[in-house]
């Protein structure tokens, strides 16, 4: 039997090309496996072979989605593999978005089975879990061995057309699909069983978990902007020079609140970024590129806005747990209310 052919997608970092300074790397195809592909090949043994690896910078993909997608699709088409594997991306947001988007597109447009792997909080999960199988991984590359093992196993199952069981049995993230199955007890009996368990305060598993709609209705617009107080919040990690509170470059455990009342324009003398998830050179040169203090000061002067709040709030958004970000923002929001802030400009990198 001939081996199945696999094409693997990775970013510039895992290809060993570079970090954030190389995040604009354009799509490139190389023969055979690269980086984590070696571990995949080890797990796939003789059943399948990674014939090519496609590498693309995370910023390049996300900033040029259509173009990147089309280039990569034509590379995959040339190889005509039996399976396409992207990542794993762990908790890297842009990498996750790229993996989810390209894997979905390969499956949809080329009809080639595709999988990827991510941590449950990666924004790529919610965006693409409906389209493809996303194997759940740990939040960092420390989970690489396990991720590669489960992705390889799952990939081979798909290739061999084996039956795919439920998300919890196979280790992929729930896709929100329903499947008809035969069970011994009929519905009414199962429902009564559950109800009895519930009354006895015993554990039971619902067969129909309600979807969580984590949405917030839009707040009302500002009626008179010339009287409004505007505050800046950022996940772009802008801090006073030398990062006095040592906000972490990734997986932030805290946020900062800094006085900008004496600044009309930020410069490399006074502000920089603490963010470790993008090339910091541009923000370090001029932090107005992330938090537009200069322009807001002008607008304050011309009375386009009432006032720029005296403080800005900042944290680094890369790899930061959603629970942390929520807790930071809940505290920040309370302060903003007591300081009479009317509206917020929140910038992300």
């Amino acid at each position, binding site marked *: 039997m001939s081996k199945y052919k696999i094409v693997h997608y990775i970013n510039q970092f895992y290809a060993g090309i570079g970090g954030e300074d190389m995040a604009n790397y354009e799509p490139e195809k190389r023969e055979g496996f690269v980086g984590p592909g070696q571990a995949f090949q080890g797990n796939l043994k003789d059943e399948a072979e990674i014939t090519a690896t496609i590498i693309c910078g995370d910023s390049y993909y996300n900033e040029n989605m259509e173009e990147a997608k089309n280039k990569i699709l034509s590379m995959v088409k040339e190889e005509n593999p039996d399976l396409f594997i992207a990542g794993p991306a762990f908790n890297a947001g842009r990498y996750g978005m790229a993996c989810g988007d390209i894997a979905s597109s390969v499956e949809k447009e080329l009809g080639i089975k595709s999988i990827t792997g991510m941590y449950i909080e990666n924004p790529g999960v919610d965006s693409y879990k409906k389209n493809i199988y996303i194997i759940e991984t740990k939040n960092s590359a420390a989970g690489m061995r396990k991720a590669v093992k489960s992705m390889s196993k799952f990939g081979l199952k798909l290739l061999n057309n084996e039956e795919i069981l439920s998300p919890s049995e196979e280790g992929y993230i729930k896709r929100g699909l329903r499947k008809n199955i035969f069970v011994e007890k009929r519905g009414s009996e199962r429902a009564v069983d559950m109800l009895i368990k519930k009354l006895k305060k015993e554990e039971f598993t619902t067969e129909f978990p309600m979807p969580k709609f984590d949405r917030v209705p839009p*707040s009302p617009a500002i009626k008179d902007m010339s009287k409004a107080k505007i505050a800046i919040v950022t996940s772009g990690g802008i801090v006073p020079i030398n990062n006095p509170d040592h906000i972490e470059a990734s997986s932030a455990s805290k946020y900062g609140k800094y006085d900008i009342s004496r600044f009309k324009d930020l410069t490399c003398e006074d502000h920089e970024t603490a963010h470790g998830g993008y090339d910091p050179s541009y923000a370090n040169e001029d932090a107005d590129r992330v938090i537009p203090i200069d322009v807001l000061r002008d607008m304050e002067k011309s009375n386009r806005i009432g006032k720029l709040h005296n403080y800005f709030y900042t944290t680094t958004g890369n790899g930061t747990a959603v629970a942390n970000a929520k807790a930071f923002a809940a505290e920040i929001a309370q302060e903003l209310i007591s300081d009479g802030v009317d*509206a917020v400009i929140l910038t*992300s990198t």
Partner: protein
Amino acid sequence: MVKEIEKTGIPVAHLCTIVPISKTVGANRIIPTIAIPYPLGNPSLTEKEEKDLRRGIVENAIKALETEITEQTVFQ
């Protein structure tokens, strides 16, 4: 973070480069920006051109905050 603040009734304009992420996380007023490392700038422009570009985006954000909406809206 956007949602936690918006929940309290303060409108938030989310300025970001990767609009799909902003949509997924549930921002309501979304303003697309230039690039990940310089959302509100462009180092290849002159200082004046760059500030004009930034003013345009911030003006768009201010307009978004002045606009009543009923659902997620991207302000191009």
